């Protein structure tokens, strides 16, 4: 009995099966780059396309996890997580730009092409340090984290919740999008960063680099999943659920709700930033379009489709919606928006607990 006290909803057996399923799924994913190395004639061969697209989806899954942690557990529906993801991406993008070095079109030793072009004489101060990989990774977490901390502190302190918070976070990502579109910001304007050459000494656009990035993303997903599971199963997780369901009651119990929400919001933003940092070298471009409010909403919808407040659902949602999108944009280029839009409507209407609700018992 006591063993189950801390872990309520799914019984021990349920948890075990979920674990087995997860381990199985991870193994299937992990074997993809290996199958990629098989000769193309082999029936088990997996194309580069599948590997690179799956790598991308894994980073989306991490983003979905981050959103689920904040929304599914603490009830913070951020429509600005795309911005945190993009900021992480920009941090990594800056690192990749610095690594291009003199190989740019204009051959400038330090300045990226677009700066040469806009007449910069030297690197702006905020670009300093990004030539170091650890610094870039740190920034990929710190910048979204600090932004989330500022925004969260102001909003949570003023007890802005629910749709108001959603609207504010949406305004945040919109403002960032407008700002990053400006070429004068020093982030490459509309084009953002592209034409990356290498990362950690590996030339990008090789099978090898793709596999390394794939495994790094997979590792991040596993670690993030375990960390989120740990959090949600701790007393903190239960406080978050309590906040989600009855915020003011938690205050009367003596919990400083602002701090708890801030903790999870900042953590979630930093995780989204890390996901973005792994996304960028895999897709080869980062630009302000990533800040567009629609992107953030879509990411939230992945979580809703999969089933919020379950973690597994977030991952499932990210994979299934994106797979569907990839498939539909090719087989039904004119009609895919109907299918996807219809899916969003159907899920919110008929599957309030998402796809996972089809299989699992009622979650928290």
């Amino acid at each position: 009995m006591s063993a189950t006290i801390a872990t309520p909803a799914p019984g021990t057996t349920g948890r075990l099966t979920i674990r087995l399923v997860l381990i199985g799924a991870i193994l299937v994913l992990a074997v993809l780059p290996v199958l990629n190395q098989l000769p193309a004639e082999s029936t088990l061969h997996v194309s580069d396309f599948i590997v690179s697209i799956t790598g991308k989806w894994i980073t989306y899954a991490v983003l979905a996890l981050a959103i689920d942690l904040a929304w599914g557990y603490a009830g913070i529906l951020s429509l600005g997580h795309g911005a945190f993801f993009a900021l992480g991406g920009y941090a990594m993008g800056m690192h990749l730009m610095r690594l291009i070095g003199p190989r740019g079109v204009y051959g400038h030793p330090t300045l990226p092409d677009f700066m040469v072009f806009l007449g910069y004489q030297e690197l702006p101060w905020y670009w300093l340090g990004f030539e170091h990989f650890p610094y870039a990774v740190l920034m990929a977490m710190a910048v979204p984290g600090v932004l989330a901390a500022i925004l969260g502190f102001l909003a949570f302190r003023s007890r802005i919740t629910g749709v108001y918070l959603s609207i504010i976070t949406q305004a945040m990502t919109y403002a960032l999008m407008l700002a990053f579109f400006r070429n004068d910001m020093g982030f490459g304007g509309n084009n953002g960063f592209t034409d990356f050459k290498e990362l950690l000494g590996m030339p990008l656009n090789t099978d090898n680099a793709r596999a390394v990035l794939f495994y790094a993303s997979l590792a991040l997903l596993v670690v993030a999943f375990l960390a989120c599971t740990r959090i949600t199963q701790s007393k903190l997780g239960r406080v978050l659920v309590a906040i989600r369901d009855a915020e003011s009651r938690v205050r009367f119990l003596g919990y400083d709700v602002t701090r708890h929400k801030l903790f999870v919001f900042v953590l979630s933003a930093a995780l989204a930033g890390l996901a973005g940092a792994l996304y960028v070298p895999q897709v080869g471009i980062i630009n302000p379009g990533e800040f567009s409010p629609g992107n953030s909403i879509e990411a939230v919808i992945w979580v809703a489709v999969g089933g919020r407040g379950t973690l597994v659902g977030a991952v499932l949602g990210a994979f299934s919606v994106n797979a569907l999108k990839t498939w539909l944009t090719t087989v039904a280029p004119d009609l895919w928006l109907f299918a996807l839009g219809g899916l969003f409507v159907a899920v919110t209407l008929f599957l309030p607990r998402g796809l996972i609700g089809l299989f699992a018992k009622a979650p928290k």
Partner: protein
Amino acid sequence: MSDGYSPPLGRSKDSSAPVLYLDGVSVVFDGFRALNNLSLVVDAGELRAIIGPNGAGKTTMMDVITGKTRPTAGVVRFRDHDLTRLDEATIANLGIGRKFQKPTVFDALTVFENLELALKAPRGPFACLAWLLSGEARRRIEATVEEIGLTARMHDRAAILSHGQRQWLEIGMLLMQDPELLLVDEPVAGMTDQETEHTAALLVRIAGQRSVVVVEHDLEFVRALGSKVTVLCEGSMLSEGSIDHVQNDPRVIEVYLGR
């Protein structure tokens, strides 16, 4: 009361000094005076019942004490602390627990977990993350569960409890908080007579170790508490004294009992 419940340690109690002190408190919403120059003193270990018609300001008074509502004017003190400057969480951590009129428990959590959240312990996010349930804590929780009669339902989610059971669970949570002052808003609404009796006995037992303020409509229940009674009307104190005293106060009869 079960052995599992141990009185708080190291609490310096000056039984002569009042625990709660309200003086000249007014609350104005959009020109409507919800509280009008209200004064109230509750002593350490005292059990106080507050009655009054709807809209008399009972809940607003609770809101003011717990930091939910800021008074427009007046003094609200808990021991040495000026409550008008503090937020709900800080006030709760000073030792004021509140049970709401409409039972508010966390539906997604089990009975055990609800109590665990209320259990007096470090409240920060990192502390919560690192929290491990000690044997001592579990014993206290289990004892309280027994106290509130929910042992059989300890691992059921609160969502599926009956109304009365939710009332009890919330009282249990209040106990877990180990407060010095309990504010209890209509604890017996929706309870059977037997449960009501049980609750009255529990509150009487608790008082003495700590101060309890009970807001209630049920005069039988108030009588069962056998405590001093304060009657509120239109945001002010109308009458104060024993139940018999207030029941015979003509002003009280006019505005409340007489109707």
